[in-house]
């Protein structure tokens, strides 16, 4: 910024105009397909709306929101969503940091190999991955039941996805495998970028491995940790495709998440206004949690 002020005004203006021109195409799409729908989402949440399917929209104020908090299915979905977030976020964080720490200073070939293995589920289409998992969980010929019985861990076949006790945990397990790839890649590069002389300085200062990690590496990778925390959290909150493909929220709404219930309400029951109200609530929850994390994370630095 400092250097810009020394340029002539006319020059700055010309650069600004060309800058906006470059932005224009992107800005157009962003406004049309992101900002406008977001606005519409908030707007329609105050209406009894079915997007003109049968009747015109009727303004009903906060009635949708009031209904939300007495809707047992929504509250159940909210609880399920929080279970997924509270389990998957810490597990993803710890596991990815552990793997990254173990592989980042291996020889280049090994590091790349491990990175590739953990990243594969991310690049493989989620539908393909889910179909394979669905087969593995199958009640009659799934590999889990086969192994479980042969190893004597279970007496009889378990209907993994059809049982309220297990269904949500099965989904969390799949979510974990697809969520760790990105954090591992990010952590490997963050750890590789920690200034080597800082680590050496700490070693000379008398720090053992865990002290070096706690006092040097951990603070240095804090920005990455924060970023991973937030993307993992958002990713977990928005868990949808898995549910849609595996259980459709069943059995008995035991695997409903907010995202899935929004889809269900809006596109199966055609209650757009009500669905959008849930979307707004989810947005507020994610925004608040992200803000809190940023606040906590940046106060360290």
């Amino acid at each position: 910024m400092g250097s810009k002020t020394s340029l002539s005004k006319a020059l700055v203006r010309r650069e600004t105009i060309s800058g906006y021109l470059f932005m224009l195409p992107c800005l157009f799409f962003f406004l049309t397909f992101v900002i406008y729908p977001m606005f519409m989402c908030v707007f329609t949440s105050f209406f009894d709306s079915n997007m003109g399917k049968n009747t015109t929209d009727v303004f009903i104020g906060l009635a949708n929101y009031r209904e939300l908090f007495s809707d047992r299915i929504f509250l159940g979905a909210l609880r399920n969503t929080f279970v997924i977030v509270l389990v998957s976020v810490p597990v993803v964080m710890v596991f990815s940091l552990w793997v990254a720490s173990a592989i980042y200073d291996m020889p280049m070939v090994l590091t790349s190999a491990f990175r590739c293995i953990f990243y594969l589920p991310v690049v493989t289409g989620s539908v393909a991955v889910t179909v394979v998992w669905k087969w593995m969980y199958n009640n009659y010929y799934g590999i889990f039941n086969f192994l479980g019985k042969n190893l004597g861990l279970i007496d009889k076949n378990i209907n993994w996805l059809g049982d309220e006790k297990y269904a949500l945990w099965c989904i969390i397990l799949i979510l974990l495998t697809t969520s760790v790839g990105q954090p591992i890649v990010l952590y490997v590069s963050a750890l590789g970028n920690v200034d080597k002389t800082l680590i050496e300085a700490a070693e000379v200062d008398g720090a053992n491995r865990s002290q070096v990690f706690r006092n040097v590496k951990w603070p240095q990778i804090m920005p990455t940790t924060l970023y991973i925390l937030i993307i993992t959290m958002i990713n977990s909150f928005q868990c949808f495709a898995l549910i849609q493909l595996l259980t459709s929220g069943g059995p008995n709404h035991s695997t409903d998440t907010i995202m899935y219930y929004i889809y269900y309400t809006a596109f199966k029951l055609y209650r757009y206004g009500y669905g959008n109200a849930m979307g707004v609530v989810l947005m507020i929850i994610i925004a608040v949690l992200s803000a809190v994390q940023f606040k906590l994370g940046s106060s360290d630095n």
Partner: protein
Amino acid sequence: MASVKLVNIKKVYPNTETKKKKVKKGEQPEEKKVNLQITDEGVVAVQEFSLDIADREFVVLVGPSGCGKSTTLRMIAGLEEITAGELYIGDRLVNDVAPKDRDIAMVFQNYALYPHMSVYDNMAFSLKLRKTPKAEIDAKVKEAAEILGITEYLDRKPKALSGGQRQRVAIGRAIVRDPKVLLMDEPLSNLDAKLRNQMRAELIKLRQRITTTFVYVTHDQTEAMTLGDRIVIMRDGYIQQIGTPQEVFQHPHNLFVAGFIGTPQMNFFNNCKLVKEGNTYAVEMLGKKVALSAEQNQKLAAAGAADQTVTVGVRPVHLDITNEGFAAKIDVSEMMGSEMHLHMNIEGQDIIGIIPTAGLDLNTVKNGSQVFFNFNPALIHLFNPETELNLI
């Protein structure tokens, strides 16, 4: 406080593997070992390095880039594995002792201050790790800060400090814990010229207040000369000479040391003839015959020197402008204030002379003028052009 003893230390970087690792971890580019010997076992960075460093001695390792001086220091610190040889700190063999257990402190070239800690915490870190009582930590940090004049910055983060202040913090961090050995890896090379001179003087002062053993690495021979009790001059992984600043300046062991120590560089005259006439020696150079001093004669005779081709070395400060002697043409004369640097040409060879300006008629040393120079034969050095060793 402890002595340090290096016995026949050798460091070899295995071939391809380390190269890849180096690139990945962003090792500093000057560490390139281009002029080192590449053998079947790998790149030899240091070899046949034997040195006894006495308790409380200040030893400076000096040499051009890639001579192995930093590698040697890092081996003492325990940051590089020692390929062969033995390293003792005090009486303890520490080849396989981790850096944290060697009780050494190190000042890094880029300071390596912990960016997320305040100056106070940076300095207290090693003491905290040793579970020193809080009050003692506080007293020691404050004392060190006092010595280095950084008391007012104790609450700041390193980011908010200037280069010179960071340097002080780095030194402070090293001295708070009374290490047995204090290692310094080019600590002044990131500072500007003025600060460097100032910090150099402060290091000398600091040295008097702190009783520990210092090992200091630099490529700057001025730092080496002014700071060191003894200087170790290295090239291509080999020690060239070990001696006090005076010794290495007055009796350089070989051509390399003669050229490396002293600025401007010593003038070398190749293809001169050493001739023995009865019991005395003389040197034939640039068409004249120069008789040598009694002391030089004695040394040459003791060494049994015969007639041979030699390289004559004369320091610029030992050249005088006289009325007769060797005729040379001045290409450029540089006025430095109290002295003058004369870049001269004699029979196609460039040489440099330094003469005092007091009482000098500047007209006689203008660019392009013809002058005569001479020197005191007692101050010249004779080198065997093949072995490069000093004959005297």
